[in-house]
C-alpha cells in the first residue's frame, strides 16, 4: 500500500481537520461525524489522520492492544511479547459487516479442525485504544448500530453467544462519514458523536485547482511530496502531544461554563451532553493553541462542531445548522 496522503496537505476543510485534531487530543470527546458530498476528501482525511497520530505503546501480540500485560484478557491464547510501539489502530468497519465480525465470535475454523472452543476477537477488539472508522455510516444496518451504541457507551464489549461468555475493553473513537443524500442518521447514533462537521466541495475555483495540483504532485512523485509535507505533519503531531499533556492544566473559568450553558439553552439542545462536549472541545482547542484557560473565542470556534447535530430539526429553516449556531452565538454573547 502506498503512503497515505499527508494530513497537512489537505486543502481547506479547516473544520474537518480541526475536529479530527481535537479528537486526537481528547479521545473522550466521542468521535467525529463527517457528512458531505462525494469527492470532498472525507476518507482521505481519515486515512491521513491515521498516519498523523502518535504511536501507542502496547504489549506485542495482545488482541486488544493492551497497555499492560495484565490487561490482556484470559481468553487470549496468543503468546505475549515485549512492549512495542505501534501506530494507533484505525480500523475500518465496512458496510454489511456481520455481528460476528464486529463483536467477535466462536472461532469456527478451530472448532471444526481442533474441536476447541475458542474466541475469535472481532473488529471492536482491534479498535481498542484507537479509532473505528465507519464509511457510509448512515447506511449501516440497524442491529449493528445498536451494538456499536452499546459498546461506545460502556467501553466494554460483552459477547454472550454460542456458549461463549467473553468481555473485553473496547474504548475507541468513532469516526463516521456519509453522504446525507443517501439517508439520515438515527438521532441516537447522532448524539453519540461528539463533534460533527459538514463538508462541501470548495466553491472557490482557485482552491479547487490547488486540490488537483497537490493530488497531481502526490501521484507523480510520492516520495518528494511526502518529504515536503511530512515536516508539517510532524509539527502537528508534536502540537497534539504537547496539547495532550497540557490538557489537564487548562483552566475553565466559571463565566465560560455559564457561556456554554446559555448557548445550549438558546439553541434548545436536549440533555447536557451538548454543554459537556462544548467545554471539552474548547479545552482541547485551548491546549492545542497553547493557551492557559478557555475563553469565549475558543467556544466560538468549536460551537458549530459540538452543537450543530444536536439541534431540533426545523424543516422550514433553510439556513444550515452551522448558520443557526452562529446566529445563536451572536444573539447570546453579542
Amino acid at each position, binding site marked *: *500500500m*502506498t503512503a497515505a496522503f499527508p494530513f497537512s496537505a489537505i486543502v481547506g476543510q479547516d473544520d474537518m481537520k480541526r475536529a479530527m485534531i481535537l479528537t486526537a487530543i481528547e479521545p473522550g470527546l466521542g468521535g467525529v461525524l463527517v457528512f458531505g*458530498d*462525494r*469527492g*470532498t*476528501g472525507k*476518507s482521505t482525511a481519515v486515512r491521513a489522520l491515521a498516519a498523523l497520530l502518535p504511536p501507542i505503546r502496547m504489549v506485542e501480540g495482545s488482541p486488544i492492544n493492551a497497555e499492560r500485560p495484565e490487561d490482556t484478557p484470559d481468553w487470549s491464547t496468543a503468546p505475549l511479547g515485549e512492549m512495542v510501539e505501534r501506530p494507533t489502530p484505525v480500523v*475500518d468497519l*465496512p*458496510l*454489511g459487516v*456481520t*455481528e*460476528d*465480525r464486529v463483536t467477535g465470535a466462536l472461532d*469456527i*475454523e*478451530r472448532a*471444526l*479442525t481442533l*474441536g476447541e472452543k475458542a474466541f475469535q476477537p472481532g473488529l471492536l477488539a482491534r479498535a481498542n485504544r484507537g479509532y473505528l472508522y465507519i*464509511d*457510509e455510516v448512515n*447506511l449501516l444496518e*440497524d*442491529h449493528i448500530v445498536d451494538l456499536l451504541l452499546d459498546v461506545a457507551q460502556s467501553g466494554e464489549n460483552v459477547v454472550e453467544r454460542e456458549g461463549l461468555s467473553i468481555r473485553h475493553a473496547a474504548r475507541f473513537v468513532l469516526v463516521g462519514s456519509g453522504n446525507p*443524500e443517501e*439517508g439520515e442518521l*438515527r438521532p441516537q447514533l447522532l448524539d453519540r458523536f461528539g463533534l460533527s462537521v459538514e463538508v*462541501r*466541495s*470548495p*466553491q*472557490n*475555483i*482557485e482552491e*479547487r*485547482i490547488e*486540490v*488537483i*495540483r497537490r*493530488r*497531481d504532485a502526490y*501521484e507523480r512523485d510520492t516520495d518528494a511530496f511526502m518529504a515536503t509535507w511530512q515536516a508539517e505533519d510532524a509539527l502537528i503531531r508534536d502540537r497534539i502531544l504537547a496539547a495532550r499533556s497540557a490538557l489537564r492544566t487548562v483552566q475553565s473559568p466559571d463565566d465560560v461554563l455559564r457561556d456554554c450553558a446559555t448557548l445550549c439553552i438558546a439553541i434548545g439542545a436536549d440533555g447536557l451532553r451538548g454543554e459537556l462536549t462544548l467545554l471539552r472541545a474548547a479545552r482541547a482547542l485551548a491546549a492545542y493553541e497553547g493557551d492557559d484557560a478557555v475563553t469565549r473565542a475558543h467556544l466560538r470556534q468549536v460551537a458549530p462542531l459540538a452543537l450543530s447535530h444536536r439541534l431540533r430539526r426545523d*424543516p*422550514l429553516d433553510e439556513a444550515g445548522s452551522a448558520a443557526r449556531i452562529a446566529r445563536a452565538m451572536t444573539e447570546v454573547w453579542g
Partner: protein
Amino acid sequence: MTPSPAWARALRALTLLAIDPEGLRGLTLRARAGPVRQAFDAALAHLPGPARRIHPDLSDTQLFGGADIAATLSAGRLIRSAGLAETPARLVLTMAERTPPALAARLAQLLDQSQKHTLVLFDEGIDAEESAPQTLCERLALHVTLDDIRHDAAPALMPAAADLEEARARLPNIQHSPEDIAKLTALAASFGIDSLRAPWLALRAARALAALAAHAQVTQDDLREAAELVYPARATQLPQEPEPEQPDATPEPEEQRQSETPDIPDELLIAAVAALLPPALLDQLTQRGATRRAAGSGAGARRKAHQRGRPLPARPGAPDGRGRIDLIATLRAAAPWQPLRRSTRPDKPGVIIHAADIHLKRYEDRADRLVIFAVDASGSSALARLAETKGAVELLLAEAYSRRDQVALIAFRGMGADLILPPTRALVQAKRRLGGLPGGGGTPLAAALGAALTLAQQSQAHGLSPTLALLTDARANITLDGRGDRAEAAKDTTTMARLWRAQNLPAIVIDISARPGPEPAQLAAEMNARHLPLPRADARRISTAVTSALGG
C-alpha cells in the same frame, strides 16, 4: 461500414484505460446485453492484467479471502483461500445495477486502497432510476453508453498491442501545464460537478491521450477529448452565462471567480462536452439523488435474511461470514455417514464432518408495509368528491387488509392535519373513523405532508416500510402555522413536498379536484410521487390503480 461515433468513443475510452489503468481506475458501461456489448466485452481483452468476473452477490470470503472449508476439513488444519483483493486484477462486475450498498462500499474501499485493481461495471439498468451505485461510478473515470448502435457499426478497431505498450512507456514523461489543471477544474465547476475527483480523473485521461498521440505535452485537443470522455455522465447542470442574475447566488463570489480566472471557462471545451450530454439530462437531475437501490427490500416484500425472521429450512452451503451454521442440521446430515467414514479414517476422534454436510441457517424476513392515507376533507374537495374519496379509501383498506398491510389515516381540513388513526391492522376501526370524517374548511396541505412525514419516519424506525397515498385537490390555502395565505401556503407545501422527496419513499398523489388543474401534477413532481387523476369513475378503478402504482 464506418463505426458509429458512440462506438468510436467507447473504444477510445477503452484504449485510455489500457494505457493508464492505475490512474483512470475503470469504466462504467451502460448497455443492455446484445451483440454490441459482446463486441465490447471481447475488446476488454486488450486491457493489461488478469481479468476476474464478479457478480453482485459476491461474498466477503470471495472478495477478501477466508477459510477454505472443504480443504480445511479434508486436511484437518486451517487452509486459507486467497480473495480477489489480494491479487491485482481487472474486476468485471456484471449486473452492476443490482449491487447492494454493502458490496459497493467494499469495492470502493478496495479501489481506494489498492492502486492495482481496476473495475469495469456492466450496468444493464433499464430506466434512469436503476443504475450502478454512485459510490463506484464516481471513482471510475470513464463512462460509456452503447445503446442504439448497429452491430455492423461496431468493428473491433483497437490500437495494436505494441502501440499501447509504447504509449504506456511514454505516459510518465508527459508534461502538463498548471493552466491545464485550471481549465479542467473550471470546466467541471461550470457543469456543476461538485466532486473533485472528476477534474483529477480528466487530467489523467488527458495525459493518457497525449501519450497515445505521442505528444510531449498535453495539448488543447487532448484536454477537450478528455473532458468529453469524463464529464458528460457527471454533469448536473448546463453551463450558465456568468451573469449575476441568479437570485439565490450572492454576486460577490461570482465576480471574484471571474477576476481570478481570466480566460476560463473555455467556450470551445464547453461546447464539446455539452454536445455529448445525454438528452434527458434534466430528467436525470431530479432522479440522480434519489437512485433507488434496485436490489433493495421492497415494500412488504419477502426477503431472505441471514439473521432474523421466520426460520426457513436450513440449506447446505459454505459459511461465508454472512450466514450462520445450523449445527443440528449439519450433524443430522453427517450422521448417516459416520460408520462409513469411520472405516476409512479410524484414527480420527469425534464426529467426522465433511464440507458438504455443513448447513446454514436461513430466515425469511418480511417488512410490514404501512400505507398512510392522507385525505383532503377541506371544503373545496368535500363539496365535490368526498363521498367518492371515502369509497376509494375503503376499497384500498380492504386491499391492505388482505395483504396484511398496516394502515394509518390522516385527515386535513380547517387549520391543520390530524392523525385520526395511528398505524393499525384493524380495518373496522379505520372504516368507522373514515365514515365519521366531516368535511369543510381550508386546505392545510403543508401540515398534512408534515404529519405524514413524521409518521413515516416513526414507522421506519419501527421497521415498517411506509408508503403514502395522498388524496387531494392540491389547492393549498392554509400555511403551516395556520394562517390563510394562498401564496405562503403554496410555498410551505413545496418545502414539505421536497422534504418528502428527500426521504425517498414511494407515494402517490390522487387528484380529486372537481375541475382539472395543474397543481396536483406539480405536487406529485415535487414529491417524486406518481400522479393519478381520479376520474369520475367507480372507486374500484382507483383502487386497482393505486395498488399497481404503489408497487403491489
